[in-house]
Structures are given as C-alpha cells and as structure tokens.
C-alpha cells in the first residue's frame, strides 16, 4: 500500500489529469463550438475561432436533420454495427476458444496465421470484394457491408480473444466439469465471465470499425438511402467544392459523444476485469 498522497502531490495529480482531459476533449469542444457558428463568423479570418463573435445559430444543425438523411444514416450504421458485432462474436469466440485450448504448437501457429490475414489492408481487397458483392447481387444493400466487415474483424478478434482464453487456467474449467457442468456450461459460467474484458474489447473494436470504415462503404453502396454515416455525411455535405463545415462537424460530434459515453461505461468493467486475481495470490 502507498501512503496517502500529500496535498501538493494531489494538486499536481489533478493538474496533470485536467491537462490530459482537456487535451483529449478539445477537438470535440472545437467541433461543438463550430457547429453552431454563423458562416459570416466562421469564414472571417480575423475572428477568434474559439468564441462566438456573432451570436450562435441552429441553422446548420437544422440543415443536417432536415435536408440530409442523417437519421437514416445513423440507423443504417447502427444496423450494420450491431449485426457485425453479433457475427464477429459468434465466429470469433468459439474459434478463439478452440485455438487457445488446442494442445501442441498448432493452435499457436493457426492463431498467428489468422492474425496475418488481418494485416492484409482493405485497400488491396476492395476490388476483388466488389466483384464478389456484384456476383452475389448485393450492391447497394447493407448486407454487403454486414458480410464483408467480419472479414476484417473476425481474424483480429479471434487473435485478441485467444490471449484472454489462454490466460485462464485450465484447472478452473476442469473444476467446473467436476462440479457438475457440461463443457458448454463450464464455458458459459466460468470462461466467459472471466473473459468479459476481452469480449468488451471485441465489441468496442468491431463497432468502431464499422462506424468509421470508408472504402468498402463507399464502393459497395451508391444509393443515398443505404449509406452509413462514414460515407453518407461527406457525400451529402460536401457538394462539389463547397464544404458545409458546421453541419459536418455537428454530424460528427452528435455521433461521437454518445459513443464515447457508452465506451466509458465499459471502461470501468474493462479495468475491473484486468485487475481480477485469477487463481492464487
């Protein structure tokens, strides 16, 4: 145990934390400020960009909601995100568990091979993927994204979860078997709760990827009604060489803040999970 920090130290600590919080939050702050700026204010170089030199306006936020299918984009993104998270978990969890428990060297080698697949960049793959999507008749269909995103997320998440499963002592699982569980019961009641931080990491990683992925979303979808946020917003709000800055920033910040808050809820569980004593002290 450490002794309680002196008040000097505590002040120092808070100063450092405040600095980093401000550092991390300032882009969002700028976005939020600018989203409500009058164009005359924004485009005048002499004006201080961090204050409202003219009174703020809701005009650009209204444009976002009234003149673009913003809510539809959010709905599409959510649909794709949730579907991909579910697919990724159903594929990666059993795969990782099987590979983690494979005895001998083959489990590890297979794990590394799977990880290598993740390193192939989507920029190389989008043309062949496009041909497959066309062949399947899924152009302009959200399904095209729902089936292609797991090609990125499943390998990485399998590899990630393998680490979590390997860290759980086999004896815990065997104890569950002796205590009356089936293999599946032992997995669900003992292995899964202990791997929760890993599962949460998978959810966060996968959902984030589907939110910001651009190339596949751009290539496979061309009708406005099927677009996700990452492509929909720029195509709607960058018209020719005119950027609707305030609306663009409003679109970004409105989606970023709730996502950030939800991830933060998970964060506590993540940290809690990592500090949990497994077998012995």
């Amino acid at each position, binding site marked *: 145990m450490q002794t309680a920090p002196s008040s000097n130290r505590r002040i120092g600590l808070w100063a450092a934390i405040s600095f980093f919080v401000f550092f991390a939050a300032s882009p969002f702050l700028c976005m939020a400020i600018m989203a409500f700026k009058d164009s005359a204010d924004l485009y005048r170089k002499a004006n201080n960009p961090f204050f409202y030199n003219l009174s703020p306006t809701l005009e650009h936020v209204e444009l976002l909601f009234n003149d673009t299918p913003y809510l539809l984009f959010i709905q599409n993104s959510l649909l794709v995100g949730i579907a991909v998270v579910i697919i990724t978990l159903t594929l990666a969890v059993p795969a990782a568990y099987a590979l983690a428990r494979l005895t001998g060297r083959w489990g590890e080698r297979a794990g590394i091979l799977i990880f290598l697949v993740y390193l192939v960049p989507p920029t190389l793959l989008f043309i062949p993927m496009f041909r497959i999507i066309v062949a399947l008749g899924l152009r302009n269909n959200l399904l095209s994204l729902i089936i292609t995103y797991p090609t990125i997320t499943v390998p990485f998440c399998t590899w990630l979860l393998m680490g979590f499963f390997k860290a759980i*002592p086999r*004896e*815990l699982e*065997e*104890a*569950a*078997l*002796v*205590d*009356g*569980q*089936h293999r599946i*019961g032992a997995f669900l*009641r*003992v292995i899964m*709760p*202990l791997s929760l931080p890993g599962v949460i990491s998978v959810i966060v990683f996968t959902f984030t990827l589907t939110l910001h992925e651009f190339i596949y979303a751009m290539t496979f979808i061309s009708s406005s009604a099927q677009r996700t946020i990452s492509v929909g917003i720029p195509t709607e709000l960058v018209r020719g060489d005119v950027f609707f800055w305030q609306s663009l920033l409003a679109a970004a910040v409105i989606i970023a803040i709730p996502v950030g808050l939800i991830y933060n809820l998970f964060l506590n569980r993540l940290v809690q999970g990592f500090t*949990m*004593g*497994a*077998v*012995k*002290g």
Partner: protein
Amino acid sequence: MSVVEIKDVAKQFGDVRAVDGVSLQISTGEFLVILGPSGCGKTTLMRLVAGLEQPSHGEIWIGDRNMNGLPPRMRQIAMVFQSYALYPHMSVYQNIAFPLKAKRQELSKVERDEKVHQAAAMVSIGHLLSRKPRQLSGGERQRVAIARALVTEPMVLLLDEPLSNLDAKLRAAARDELKEFQRRLGITTIFVTHDQVEAMGLGDRIVVMESGKVQQIGTPQAIYDDPDNTFVATFLGSPSMNLLPTDHYELGFRPEHFLPATRVDGSDSIKFTFHVKRVEYLGSDRLLYGFVDGFPETSLTLAKLPISVDDPVEVGSSYEFAVRNLAIKRFDKESGLRWDGGKS
C-alpha cells in the same frame, strides 16, 4: 467393500507412459495416499479417476459402476486442485453453491442455502462467505476449496497436493484439520503428494508410485519397515536407508538402526567397523557420515544417533557399530526386489 476399483489402468501421452498398469482397490472411508517423486504419474492417475482423462487401457469402477467414458459430472466425485481453482468472479458463497446448483437440482433454494452454510461451518469459514477468493489467505482458500468439494457429499474426495502451497507452519495445521474432517465425515479420500511426511501422517494406506507403476501398497508402517524394493526403501525415510553392495545382494538398514555396538543386543546382530568422516548435529539427533570396513569407501553409510545415545564420536576415528539382524533387509542386486520376500 471397495468404493473405487482401478483395474490394470494405463495412460499413454504420445510416447510417455504416464500411468503403467496400475491396479488398486480403495475401501469405504479409507484415506489413501498416493506418494511418489515428481512426474511419476500421480496427478494423471487422479485425473483418470476424476474423468478428466480417459484411460488408454484398463477400467475404473466407482461404487460398482464402470466409469470408462463417463464425464466427471457423472462420477459422484469431488476434487480439490493443487491451485484450488476457486472461481475468481464468484464470492465464497457462490463458489460453494456452484456444484450444488448443477449436481443437486432437486434441492430448494432454502435447502441449498442451508447446505452451503453447513459446509462453510465445517471448515470454519462462515464469516468469509461474502468475500472474493482474491481476498483470502492461502489457508482460507484451501478451506473454501474443501467446502466446495464436500458440499455435494461425494462418494470419493480427490485431493491433488492441496497443502503444497502453504508455508510449513500452516501446512502442519492444515494437515491435522484435513485428517480430522476426513475422520469425522468418513469420506473415502484419495490424496496425492510427493511429501513423505504428509503421506506417513495422513494415510491409512500409502501407494508408492514410480514411473507410472505401483511399487508398493501398504500401511505407513509396513511401507517404512518392510519395503518391497530398493526404490521404496530409499524413497521413504530421511536420511534414506543405507544400501551396501555385497557379492550376492544389497544389504539395507536404516541409519537409526545403525548404533554403537554397546547399544545393540549382541546376540542377534551384525557388527561393522564404522569410519566416521563427518558429524552433523541436528539438535535432537546426531548424523554420522562415513563408511564401513569391507565395503568400498564410495558407498556412503549414515548413522543417526538419538540424543539418548551420548557416546563420544570423533571425526576420523573408527568405532564398533552394529545393526540388529531384524532390522536388516536384503535386496536383489539386479531387480532391487526384496530377497527374503518382504518378511524379515
């Protein structure tokens, strides 16, 4: 009546034969200790009984049923693992209730709660029920593991070196406690250890194993006094039995039986001239290192003199020592087996 019967069981891992033709019968209420050096297959044998491994050959019967092919949950056994394997995400209460939920589904919530409290009280951890395993000391964890194992009232309790993670003092206390629970509950127990003191102190019978094979089965006294072969003779006892090669056999006697000739009844003993090379004082005993006339200087011979034998002993001098004939065992030079058939 035997509760567990192991019939000519073998287990092969690749080209390692971890268990090699073991046959055993364990009777109701018995405390059986499996003793052997590291890697001799003790854990594997226990896992075979638990159903965590399936035998490559042979059969395991528990309570008059052939268990081959049955998973652990169907075997009416409970096990305490070397690491205790407490579920870290559950409280002590939940840990103890966990096997009840799966194995005794007929119990109502109230009955289950009662059983958990009973099991906890039995190992005096009633005050720890709301803690998480990480908030417990090693000794407390062991008790939780035992409570979790006993709560379902299994036919057989399996323990794999449950004391090896405790410090020496706690270990002695835990050993007493364990023996006490076992006697009180009369539960058939198989206990694995590589510690001979633990084995001698706890076991009704001891099974001595080496490289997958049973070397000898018997009460602690029989194993110590009448070893069947040189492995058992030298594995038990500290310091271990002296073995002196003769033309026809190996002559074995324990250091505590090797005493100054004046202290041994002369009519029925064998005398040796003992050259002392080193003396160690161990408080209650003196250990003498040396060799005896007629045998090569390389076959180190030890004598252990209790404090009551206060004859002066000088390093570098030679003395007349003797062993009673009854205390002498003869082993075959080739096979290491007892010559006189284990009865002397």
